[in-house]
């Protein structure tokens, strides 16, 4: 596949690894790089990138998985809406196994709630038209990447006058979260791998505060292994050259200004919430979106009363520390024992973009493997 296969070729990875090796030697210090986006976390583990990096390059996995940062109370709210007799809750597959305080959506579905996975929020409108007697509620989650699609969906519903559709809006914003992270004194980072698809919408400009106020370099990156390796290399170069700039490796997709149509739709349909609770990170000011007054008729929060409880995380759960990059997954006591992808305690164990799930699923024993590298049994070089 064009624009995919080229960025997965092992030979290219090897070229970059040689450069990274070289430059990390010249740096001669331990370097902590945070990949902000869960998509990157997933790719890093799927392709085993962490394992092939020099020992002094450490990747810290950031809070950029919308599923992982979803507080339990919000799940409970979604379930309470879904349990209404005449409601069909539509949602991306990613949310199905996230534990609420009692149930996940998957379990609520098993108990009888009509919950349907959709590929696109637009599919909800089709379901709404096919089920005029039902209320269709889309469980909107995601960062700036996804917000344009839900905004356009609401605009489309308004244009077509679809009155039995609404959205339970839980969009979150990357920039306020990054600010919160950077203000955390526990966390010492040397640079960031920037979220490629969020940046496709918002452009490179909004990151300038990172280089200007916090003096950290950031490279906005694509999601294929070559993209990520190249971004790491670019970051290391900034570090050796004592630069701290907003650079983009993902120039084939990301522009400086972002996508104007997408931003316009977001601004039209949504407004920024004063405060939004992130799992593990607590309330972050101006970090969530809600549906604007003009489109209030599509706001499920106004159509349905929800428990709207703040539910404390499981005591054992260290997701907050994981999301902040302060702890490694295996430092959580329940990692891989009580907390596994099949029975997650925290959200980081649910989506394969969560650091805990990624470690468990792909790299559980990565340290162990390093001892096993030389293997005479290999049949394929």
């Amino acid at each position, binding site marked *: 596949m064009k624009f995919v296969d080229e960025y997965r070729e092992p030979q290219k990875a090897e070229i970059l690894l040689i450069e990274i090796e070289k430059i990390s030697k010249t740096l001669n210090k331990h370097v902590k790089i945070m990949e902000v986006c869960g998509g990157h976390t997933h790719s890093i583990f799927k392709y085993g990138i962490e394992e092939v990096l020099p020992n002094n390059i450490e990747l810290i996995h950031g809070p950029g998985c919308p599923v992982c940062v979803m507080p339990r109370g919000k799940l409970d709210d979604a379930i309470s809406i879904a349990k209404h007799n005449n409601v069909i809750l539509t949602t991306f597959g990613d949310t199905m196994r996230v534990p609420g305080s009692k149930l996940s959506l*998957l*379990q609520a579905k*098993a108990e*009888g709630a009509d919950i349907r996975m959709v590929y696109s929020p637009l599919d909800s409108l089709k379901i709404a038209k096919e089920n005029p007697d039902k209320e269709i509620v889309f469980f909107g989650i995601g960062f700036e990447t996804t917000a344009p699609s839900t905004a356009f969906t609401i605009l489309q519903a308004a244009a077509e006058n679809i009155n039995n559709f609404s959205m339970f809006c839980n969009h979150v914003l990357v920039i306020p979260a990054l600010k919160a992270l950077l203000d955390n004194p526990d966390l010492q980072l040397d640079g960031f791998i920037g979220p490629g698809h969020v940046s496709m919408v918002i452009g490179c400009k909004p990151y300038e505060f990172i280089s200007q106020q916090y003096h950290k370099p950031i490279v906005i990156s694509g999601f294929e292994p070559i993209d990520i390796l190249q971004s790491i290399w670019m970051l290391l170069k900034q570090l050796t050259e004592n630069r701290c700039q907003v650079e983009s490796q993902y120039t084939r997709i990301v522009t400086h200004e972002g996508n104007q149509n997408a931003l316009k739709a977001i601004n039209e349909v949504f407004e920024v919430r004063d405060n939004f609770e992130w799992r593990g990170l607590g309330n972050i000011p101006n970090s969530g979106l809600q549906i604007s007054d003009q489109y209030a008729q599509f706001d499920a929060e106004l159509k349905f009363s929800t428990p709207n409880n703040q539910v404390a995380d499981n005591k054992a759960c260290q997701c907050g520390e994981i999301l902040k990059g302060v702890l490694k997954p295996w430092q959580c006591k329940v990692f*891989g024992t009580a907390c596994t992808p099949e*029975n997650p305690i925290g959200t980081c164990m649910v989506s394969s973009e969560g650091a805990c799930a990624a470690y468990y699923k792909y790299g559980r*024993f990565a*340290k162990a493997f390093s001892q096993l590298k030389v293997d005479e049994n290999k049949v394929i070089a």
Partner: protein
Amino acid sequence: MPQNPLFQNIGKNRAKKVRDKYINLTHGSGGKAMRDLINDVFVSTFDNPLLNSLEDQATVNFASLIQHGNKLAFTTDSYVVDPLFFPGSDIGELAINGTVNDLAVSGAKPLYLTCSVILEEGLPVETLRRVVKSMQTAATKAGVQIVTGDTKVVHRGAADKLFINTAGIGVIPDGVNISSKNIQPGDVVIINGELGNHGAAILIARGELALESNIESDCQPLNDLIANILNVCPHINAMRDATRGGLATVLNEFAISANVGIRIHEAAIPVQEKVKGVCEILGLDPLYLANEGKLVLIVKREYADEVLSVMKSHPAGKNSCVIGEVIDVPAEIVLLNAGFGAERILDMLVGEQLPRIC
């Protein structure tokens, strides 16, 4: 070996208890949740070496089979009964006994069964556990092992709670040749007890007709009874369990298959008073009601007394009796003698007496 402590946990982490309260789609996905369900619910209950290997098939040496006889019997039935639990039995016991009986009526010693379930999303896991335990209890009682299986989960509304399929194999002893083709005029018809209990029990348990009674299903394995019969008389001509469609259906199948007539005598056919009550209220006929532990056998008249006496001495045959005889004409017809000289046709069931009884 690497020393990472997490690494040591692998084995322990692999097979888990099912913690979900309700079956969900992941339990049929082929992944970990399914593996856990299979291990925790099925394998731990059915627990036998053939099953525990968890290959895609069970394998048995012919050497161990041939000791029982010279022919293999092979059968299958799906069970969709509603409700799952009903007085006297449940879908699990039914799924074992039904298939055991279909083997046993060929004279075979039933040996190995499969268990394939279709689960509806939302089924309480506890319900499944109860059913599976009931299957194992019935299997133990019937002396069979469940050696391979399959699990499917379908969306809510794509199945009704739980369906079970069991297939079975057994071995027919040398010299036993039971087939409806053997039936000859002059043979007598024997049954092992009261008719219609299962069908009536299900009907009442369903609750739709708001009837109340303490009728219990007759669900029971017949293989031990049959082994006893074959012990004293290997020359049984034909044998069948009277399940869906009742006695009338089995007799019509016999008459058509052997091109003979069969006459039975109304007064000789045992039916419980309560079952009669249900039939009178609803205009049903107990001769068409389902049974799940009722044997219909056709033997030469000369063996009748001997067979009857061994049957009566077995718990599954206490109320055995002769109910009729095979005649030459009219062929392919079953007649019912009403007792005062009148006879009428007892035809195959048209329409349905009850759906989802087995």
